[in-house]
């Protein structure tokens, strides 16, 4: 809501400065920006995210003073920070936990935006800048996770760089240029460290554009109804929202501190406490929790489509699941911003949130593991028949299986294995991935046309009055200057 500036310098020095570099004016205009008076606590996550970014930059700069980017010394240097450097345990823990907290907050912030239609005109650019920030966050987090040079750091990054290698034509070259050698090694570690230090400042720059963007258009609000009367519909950001944000930040910091002090390793992976060993792959490679839904989408594609192999399709689906967010403002055809007034969209949105969380669980589990079993495990004898085809037969007991195995000729190469039958995690990831894309590509465009929205309040002020149960002021009274 960039109206005319209300800042008036009073002292000689501020007048002098204001004529030359109106930086105080800029700060005052931002802090006193008229803000819709009905913002709920979902709107406090922007402030929480700003705090997260500052926390990561400050702790990160300190860690860089002690960290050594070399395959021989990286793991030991992180252990040294945790054991020997004064308060290193604290700062390292804040940084590692901070990454998870940052993503937790950004997911709430993004779901907020999806529910209240924060991506719709005129805030498309604000939304796209947010998507850029999210992409940069993922790149930063991925490279940061490689730096401690644990087993999961090494093999996780090997999996991701191999994905890039799966892109046709340019993939292998890009992969080599990314790694700086035939495999993940010193060159990779050093360039990842350099970029991991750089990207947060790029994020800070894009955050500035993001904030500039919504100061131009004005904040969205839970009703989605635009501000009609600045005096009736808005309050100054300070002190109304500085206080509200500060309270939310306090609650968030309690959660943050609980992890830092009581569960510093709970969000990490035990395998990363083992130094990287290129010759030994951990049995179960998983990314950090905040990337698990995308890992699930990647692994959900197990079938070729025409000439495109499954591996490449998985990569396309994974990047597509993020890319699709960029065009969301044009996929959603509904004129109504807030899903508060879209009864059907509201329910499908809840399903979308559940699907996203469910995909996270799918990503954490082996696709071939069973969620539940259809029947008791049985025994299967697999063998090669006389025509050379692989066959198998199921038995209830070991004795019968053994008898059948012995009845086959030695050339059949019969072996007994456990035959489990049940619902695979893979099938859940496929169903949830399908819903993820369906939500954006079909539900959003179609629902906007066929859904009949509920009536919206005439203005923000009216929606607040209704909620607080007060009658509208009679026209005789002058409109109140301050919100009730």
């Amino acid at each position: 809501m960039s109206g005319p500036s209300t800042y008036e310098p009073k002292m000689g020095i501020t007048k002098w400065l204001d004529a030359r570099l109106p930086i105080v004016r800029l700060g005052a205009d931002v802090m006193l920006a008229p803000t819709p008076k009905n913002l709920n606590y979902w709107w406090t996550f922007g402030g929480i995210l700003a705090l997260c970014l500052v926390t990561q930059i400050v702790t990160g700069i300190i860690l860089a003073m002690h960290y050594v980017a070399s395959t021989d010394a990286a793991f030991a240097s992180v252990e040294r920070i945790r054991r020997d450097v004064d308060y290193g345990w604290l700062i390292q823990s804040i940084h590692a936990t901070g990454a998870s907290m940052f993503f937790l907050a950004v997911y709430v912030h993004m779901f907020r935006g999806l529910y209240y239609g924060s991506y719709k005109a005129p805030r498309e650019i604000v939304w796209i800048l947010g998507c850029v920030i999210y992409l940069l966050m993922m790149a930063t987090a991925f490279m940061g996770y490689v730096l401690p040079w644990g087993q999961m750091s090494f093999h996780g990054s090997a999996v991701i760089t191999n994905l890039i290698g799966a892109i046709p034509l340019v993939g292998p070259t890009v992969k080599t240029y990314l790694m700086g050698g035939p495999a993940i090694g010193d060159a990779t570690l050093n360039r990842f460290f350099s970029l991991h230090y750089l990207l947060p400042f790029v994020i800070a720059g894009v955050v500035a554009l993001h904030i500039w963007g919504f100061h131009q258009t004005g904040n969205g609000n839970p009703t989605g109804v635009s501000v009609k009367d600045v005096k009736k519909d808005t309050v100054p950001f300070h002190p109304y929202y500085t206080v509200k944000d500060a309270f939310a930040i306090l609650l968030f910091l309690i959660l943050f501190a609980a992890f830092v002090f009581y569960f510093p390793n709970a969000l990490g992976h035990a395998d990363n406490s083992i130094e990287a060993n290129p010759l030994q792959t951990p049995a179960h490679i998983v990314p950090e929790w905040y990337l698990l839904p995308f890992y699930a989408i990647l692994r959900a594609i197990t079938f070729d489509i025409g000439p495109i192999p499954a591996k490449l399709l998985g990569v396309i689906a994974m990047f597509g699941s993020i890319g699709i967010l960029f065009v969301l403002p044009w996929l959603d055809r509904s004129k109504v911003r807030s899903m508060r007034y879209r009864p059907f969209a509201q329910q499908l949105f809840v399903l979308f949130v559940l699907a996203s969380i469910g995909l996270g669980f799918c990503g954490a589990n082996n696709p071939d593991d069973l969620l539940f079993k259809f029947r008791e495990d049985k025994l299967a004898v697999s063998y090669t028949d006389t025509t050379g085809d692989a066959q198998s037969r199921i038995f209830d007991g070991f004795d019968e299986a053994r008898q059948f195995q012995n009845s086959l000729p030695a050339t059949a190469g019969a072996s007994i294995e456990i035959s489990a039958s049940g619902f695979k995690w893979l099938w859940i990831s496929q169903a949830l991935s399908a819903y993820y894309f369906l939500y954006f590509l079909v539900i959003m465009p179609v629902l906007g046309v066929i859904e009949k929205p509920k009536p919206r309040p005439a203005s923000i002020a009216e929606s607040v009055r209704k909620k607080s149960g007060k009658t509208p002021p009679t026209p005789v009274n002058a409109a109140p200057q301050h919100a009730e």
Partner: protein
Amino acid sequence: MAVAGGGVAAVAWPFIQQLAPAADTRALSSAEVDFSKVPLGGEIRVLIGGMPFFVRHRTDVEIQEARNVDVARLRDPQTDDERLKPKADGTLNPAILVTSGTCTHLGCVPVGPAQGTVGDFGGWYCPCHGSHYDTSGRIRKGPAPLNLPIPNYTYTSDTIIKIAL
């Protein structure tokens, strides 16, 4: 315009090309391996430029298994002989199998005889997503699309091979 564009590209090129493997990295891209120390039925694992390779001393039974496979039925059809390189005298040495140690699915390192698991086909087993390789390093079961690649190697003597990336 074209001149300015060319100038920009010329200046940009060094800043991109520096990302490529440096000369010392490229220089370390081959190694000599003495395979006479590999026990029968066992293997050694060699890292060259950070890439793992398997050098396996196969038993006669394993060689027979690798040869008895109906090649046409394989996902990535290759005979066992096609997966060996000739010695200096032009003959093959089926006892020694040299393969890449990178699973062709997503790049994990499969486990083998020294790790106690050789998979359903006697060769290697990738614990990440369950690919089984046979005693010739060919993919037999699981998600991997291709056989374990055969690196570029030569016999420099009766007991030494030189593996290059």
